[in-house]
């Protein structure tokens, strides 16, 4: 049960049950579909960008607790950040869930730390990173669908 509690931390369970920014966005600069064909997780991430600043982020769709909580935490973390800051958060998050968290401090991680347990579950890394990949694609100016495969 300890590994499970590590994976399904309270923050994750909370964001799964009450996802933040969980709605479509009128006037979005871009939206990108993210799809994990392995388990059917499917989200659309909306961003409104003003110059270099991410003014707003939201998402719709459904999938497992890890993917939904990750999308929710991502949306509230990157809101108001610059594109560069969001890119760096993407890298931080990716390192965290793939088990390469040695160089990361608690300050770097903030709320993202709740996903530290994912690295013990390799099959779930794609769930955790799905919304982040969609965000990255949207920030890079793509409107295309991203998949984890």
């Amino acid at each position: 049960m300890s590994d499970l509690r590590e994976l399904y931390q309270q923050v994750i369970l909370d964001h799964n049950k009450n996802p933040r920014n969980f709605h479509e966005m009128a006037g979005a600069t871009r939206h990108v579909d993210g799809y994990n064909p392995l388990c059917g997780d499917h989200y659309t991430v909306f961003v409104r960008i003003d110059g270099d600043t991410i003014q707003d982020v939201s998402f719709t769709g459904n999938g497992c607790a890890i993917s939904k909580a990750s999308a929710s935490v991502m949306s509230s973390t990157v809101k108001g950040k610059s594109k560069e800051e969001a890119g760096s958060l993407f890298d931080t998050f990716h390192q965290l869930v793939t088990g390469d968290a040695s160089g990361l401090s608690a300050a770097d991680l903030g709320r993202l730390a709740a996903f530290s347990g994912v690295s013990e579950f390799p099959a779930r890394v794609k769930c955790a990173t799905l919304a982040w990949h969609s965000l990255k694609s949207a920030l890079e100016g793509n409107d295309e669908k991203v998949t984890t495969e």
Partner: protein
Amino acid sequence: MTSSSFIVHRSSFIDPYDVEKIRGDFPILQRTARGKHLVYLDNAATTQKPQQVIDRIVRYYTEENSNVHRGVHYLSEVATMHYENARGVVKRFLNARSEKEIVFTRGTTESINLVAQAWGRANVREGDEILISAIEHHSNIVPWQMLCEEKRANLRVIPVADNGELQIDEYERMLNPRVKLVAIGHASNALGTINPLERMIAAAHAAGALVLIDGAQGVPHLRVDVQELGCDFYAFSGHKVYGPTGVGVLYGREALLDAMPPWQGGGDMILSVSFEKTTWNALPYKFEAGTPNIAGVIGLATALDYVSAIGLDAINAYELDLQRYATQQLREIEGLRLIGTAREKAAVISFVLEGVHPHDIGTILDQEGIAVRTGHHCAQPLMMRFNVPATGRASFGIYNTREEADALVAGLHKVIEVFR
């Protein structure tokens, strides 16, 4: 009644099905997973292998390995004899009329593609129809889509009722002279539904259509007699019936196979080759181009002998009891909904749990050592039909027990506990 007569009376009713003896034949069931006793409930994906099959493959590579149908040397004769004996085992297992009707393939998927390509491309024309059902595995959808696209034929889908049974009245209305083939599963991998094949095959034949049965989920659970069924093609995989991966069978009626052009070209499928003209080999070799999976074929025959020794009727009765028990236990879990409640079902139980995504169920059960499948089960149109993104699926085999069904139920209570 004396005590001795009581014992005699009772023993005549003791179930001869010895699940502990069967479990003892499967070494992998002794291992742990995530530090827990392994509870393997993913048999619809693949089954575990008994020691007899493992030993047979080892013996082949240790003592008999050689290419088949080629050499005049001793080992080639030995390998060829065992390879062809395996064909005889399959022929008897399916009650085919002749060994010429048994083609070895890589698996069900390749068997279906063989028919779609070799029979389909020669016989299906623009405007013709192929019927499949709403509960098919992708392997019995995509080959027909590819064929229909190429030939501008129409792929039509037999609808499914809410309980997971095909709507047979609707199917019978769909049959018409343009229908060239009906391709349906024996049993559904995602729902467990066993289709009423005899009625469906008779109706198709009355309308002048041929019938292919995807037997991947049929052969492990049900006695199959292709003559009694009257089907034209029957496909199955070795690894779903306790045999090795990478080997499968296509049964086809001899006259049909005989009239079909070959599919793949190469060695073994020819009589003579010149740069001007090649003459095809006789059945079934016409469809077995290249060196086959010899060890796999021999291992498959051992697996079929293994299940035949237990008896398919005994297996079916045991699994049915297990399925009913597990279904009853699962129904008592609050918030659990069964997907697929057909009256005739193989030992496959699909379910969703309110408020918990199947992927999370899979991870938490895995921590308990319980292997289930979660996802769309290679049946995405079916998931859409039932309006679920995915399901959890517990599928049972000859070695599973009521205690393992109980472990599944306890694991699901743990899932609920985590997500409460």
